[in-house]
């Protein structure tokens, strides 16, 4: 059921006109290079990390730019990006970073009480946190259904 949900979201994204198919969250590792190019950034892959406590394997792909934006994409051993974090002087391109989860994020933000400085969205299908103001914005997002088994989300940083 989770796979079908993901495919439906992907199809919805592909149907949008004039958007390049960029996907970070929910995408696969082939999208990381596209994201790097879109951001005009440099890509650094961390040593493949293994969660010390649970043995869940994942890699972190960090894109950093000259203008101070950093985006980290957390990928499972099968290449699926299950979490992203970001920090920089402004918001990243959230359409790109959240991929097929972007519309869900926008709808959740619209339903939440307005808060310019701090946002926490916790839904069964999507968690998004974003904090800050111009000059220092940062946050993270993950898809609970895509997490590796026994993965502790405090590793998404």
């Amino acid at each position: 059921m989770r796979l079908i949900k993901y495919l439906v979201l992907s199809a919805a994204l592909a149907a949008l006109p004039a958007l390049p198919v960029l996907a970070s969250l929910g995408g696969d590792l082939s999208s990381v290079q596209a994201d790097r190019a879109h951001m005009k950034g440099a890509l650094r892959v961390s040593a493949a990390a293994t969660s010390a406590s649970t043995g869940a394997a994942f890699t972190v792909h960090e894109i950093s730019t000259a203008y101070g934006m950093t985006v980290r994409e957390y990928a499972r051993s099968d290449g699926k990006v299950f979490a992203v974090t970001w920090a920089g002087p402004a918001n990243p391109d959230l359409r790109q970073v959240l991929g097929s989860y972007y519309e869900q994020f926008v709808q959740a933000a619209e339903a939440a009480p307005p808060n310019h400085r701090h946002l926490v969205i916790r839904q069964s299908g999507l968690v998004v946190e974003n904090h800050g103001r111009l000059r220092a914005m940062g946050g993270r997002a993950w898809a609970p259904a895509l997490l590796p088994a026994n993965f502790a989300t405090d590793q998404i940083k």
Partner: protein
Amino acid sequence: MRKFLLALSFVAPLVLGACGGGGGGSIGPPPPPPPVQVIATPGPPNVESFTLGPGPAELVQPAVNTAYLSIQVCVPGTTQCQTIDNIEVDSGSSGLRLLSSTLTQITLPGAFQQPGGLQLAECLPFADGSSFGPLAKADLKLPVSGKEALNITVQVIGDPTYAVPSDCTGKMENTVAAFGANGVLGVGPFLQDCGLGCEQNVIPGTYYTCPTPTTCADASVVTAQQLWNPVNVFASDNNGSIVEVPSVASAGASNVSGSLVFGIGTQTNNSLGSATVLAIDDNTGFFSADFNGTIGLNAALDSGSNAYFVDDSSIMTCPTNANFYCPPSTVNLSATLHGAGGGNTVTASFSIVNADDAFNANQSATAVPGLGGPLNALPGMSVLIQFDLGMPYFFGRNVYTAIENQTASGVLGPYVAY
């Protein structure tokens, strides 16, 4: 992991049904009352009046812990003016921004990049979305104090002739209802809203130049042409400001009035007095806090934040709103604040209440003490806010914000003080 709070005489484990791990010290003594506060009387030459009120009628829910004032905006150099109310007072940002829909009586001229002459526009990032609009020139006149900031660059949010660029993302906050105010008066510690970062780089999703209203493109903008802190443009009393909010009873209150005082150490009503200065790092915009077992958190005092946003995993979040804390009973907390670069040290005591209980007990309150929520600060991203003392900390305190590179009461800004 056992966590210990600093500056408390004992540590006690919290017994909460839903919480393992046990936090230390949340059952502590209540915070001491702040020192005697003198709130300046609104009027010339330098005191504006604001109200913690519900905000504009268009808001879906009344605002909470948000200070609003009225301004007068004019076409530069003319008497074509309009009064606009419900402008948010924000000590965490710099620059004046107005919702386009409020400008019903006047039309402001555009702000153009020089050289080149292209119309400027901006996407302002928020945690929950973005606000987009072209830049314009205006005279800002504050009706109660008489202060004027002439021919300043302002952002006109939601101008309908402008297409939102694709890299200005998130929930769009281009209407009064989505934005939460008719505009914002940013009186923060920085001279410009973005600074050298936006001059030396093209930062996507910030500033734009627009050959036409539907073809805005990412651009760098020199600081002189960015949104400027309006206080710094005043002819006098221009080195900072003071947000003065009276104490608010724990049950909450409606329509609490306070004073926005311009200048620090320039008049008899704005000296630092016994306030403690906390230097702000000129690059990051933060001072430092030690809290809940972590030292050196990036900290801010920000009237544009409506609660205490701090991380303490022993405090439950609210069952239907992960943005706020709902402890079973009020928790008394304490942090040690440090000025940047080894400056002063001061203990900050504050309490966080059950947000749901507080709202239910007083549904019309627009000033609610003790509101708090989690930050979940990312330990891997060290440039971000990690400890945010918002409007509740202003209750009963005069909070000074000195602007960078300005000397205020003999101390060089940027700094905050209280």
